[in-house]
């Protein structure tokens, strides 16, 4: 049901019944290693290219989610997935393996929540019974496309972020009363916001206004107060974007308590890992939400959370042509079924 300008309220409360989360060696040394279902010791994942390795990350995450739910691929109606690589080949190739009817999405690092919002909408409105949604990224494959070769000795500035190697997949289905699982209650779809920043080594600074726009729109549309949520968490703003967002939200008059605002990109790695301003990538919000945050919800640490995943919609070509970086954010609200 549409509420306000750009939000959906899911009155049938679609449920996340299973998840699959995979990660690479850098994530295995990180802060949230225990929340991953499978961690790989090698960036190559026994494949002969990084792009193939990323496909395997997603394929394995899908398999794990299905296995946990005791379901076959044939029982899944749709797959919503996307990533950062040209023409989203890792997701499409994983969909070829899965043989599940497929929607390929591109929203850069906001793809995870774009997929979850769409999957929830389809389930809420009886468009399907069981839907898989997910996003993936691979550090070396993304660096190769957007920046320099992995072994090139260029110095990254302190505003740069580290692309997560990982994939997160969720199985969304109709609400089953009595089951203790997280449910999706609402979603806000973001507008593209461009504040004229053009430094590809400062994504957080470019994406913060998009996050602020979507989060304020969410509270306006749903006519609720930030105190409704225990945690308002962004996808991959990193240190600079996170601090900027906190100031933007304060200026917009939203009353957000200290500690109520967090960022997936600041949670996933340890302080001493050389990631500069934090983590980024389509796999960042997907792995942190479907792994760590849902576990915390199930353990009762949080009752309700709002995740706003941010994406920078640039291409290597657009920034070489000196275009600024347009950004987007999609927010999804999740709580425990009671």
């Amino acid at each position, binding site marked *: 049901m549409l509420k306000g300008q750009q939000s959906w309220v899911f009155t049938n409360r679609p449920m996340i019944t299973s998840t699959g989360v995979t990660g690479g060696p850098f994530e295995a040394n990180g802060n949230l290693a225990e929340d991953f279902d499978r961690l790989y010791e090698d960036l190559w994942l026994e494949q*002969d*290219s*990084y*792009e193939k390795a990323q496909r395997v990350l997603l394929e394995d995450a899908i398999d794990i989610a299905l296995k946990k739910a005791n379901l076959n691929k044939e029982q899944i109606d749709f797959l919503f997935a996307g990533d950062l690589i040209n023409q989203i080949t890792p997701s499409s190739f994983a969909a070829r393996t899965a043989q599940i009817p497929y929607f390929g999405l591109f929203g850069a690092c906001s793809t995870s929540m774009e997929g979850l919002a769409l999957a929830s909408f389809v389930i809420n409105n009886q468009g399907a019974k069981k839907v898989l949604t997910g996003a993936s990224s691979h550090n070396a494959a993304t660096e*190769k496309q957007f920046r*320099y*070769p*992995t*072994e*090139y*000795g*260029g*110095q*990254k*500035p*302190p*505003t740069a972020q580290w692309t997560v190697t990982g994939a997160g997949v969720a199985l969304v289905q109709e609400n089953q009363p009595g089951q203790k699982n997280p449910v999706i209650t609402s979603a806000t779809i973001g507008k593209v916001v*461009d*504040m*004229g*920043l*053009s*430094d590809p080594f*400062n994504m957080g*600074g470019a994406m*913060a*206004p998009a996050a602020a726009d979507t989060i304020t729109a969410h509270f306006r549309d749903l006519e609720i107060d930030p105190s409704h949520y225990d945690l308002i968490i962004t996808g991959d703003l990193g*240190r*600079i974007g996170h*601090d*900027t967002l906190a*100031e*933007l939200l304060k200026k917009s008059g939203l009353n957000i308590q200290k500690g109520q605002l967090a960022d997936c990109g600041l949670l996933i790695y340890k302080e001493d890992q*050389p990631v500069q*301003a934090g983590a980024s990538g389509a796999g960042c919000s997907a792995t942190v939400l479907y792994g760590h945050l849902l576990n915390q919800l199930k353990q009762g640490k949080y009752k309700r959370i709002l995740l706003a995943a941010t994406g920078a919609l640039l291409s290597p070509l657009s920034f070489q042509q000196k275009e*600024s970086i347009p950004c987007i954010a999609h927010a999804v609200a999740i709580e425990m079924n009671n």
Partner: protein
Amino acid sequence: MAGKKNTTPEQQQYQQLQQKHEKKRPVLKNCIKAFFIGGLICTIGQAISYFYIYFFNFTEQSVGNPTVATMVFLSMLLTGFGVYDRLGQFAGAGSAVPVTGFGNAVISAAIEHRTEGFVLGVGGNMFKLAGSVLLFGVFAAFVVALIKTLLGIWGGI
């Protein structure tokens, strides 16, 4: 970057706000690190030059070629073993400016695109980063040589 492009007042206001939170590059610290690591790499190069002069039949004029080849070879090993990019993050220009940095730019691109095959991958992308150094380096050398030649003809220097 604000001011150079056509930005709206709203964008300018945001960029100012964002600037407050943006971490600046530690320029002085980076310069000091670059000075010492760059100096160290050049000292190693000098030691290799002396090695070739004392143990082989090279002169100060002819020792450049084997020294550069040795330095690039060492850079190749360090790039292949994944050490040079870490050195680069620490030393910045210190490891990028010497010839080892040039070697690293060529070799890292060659390794990166190995998965696309030898012809289109390695061959087509090897000079992706270093190509502009070669182009403008050769062109600058041509311009300087042209000026020198013309001065020689007209000025009798």
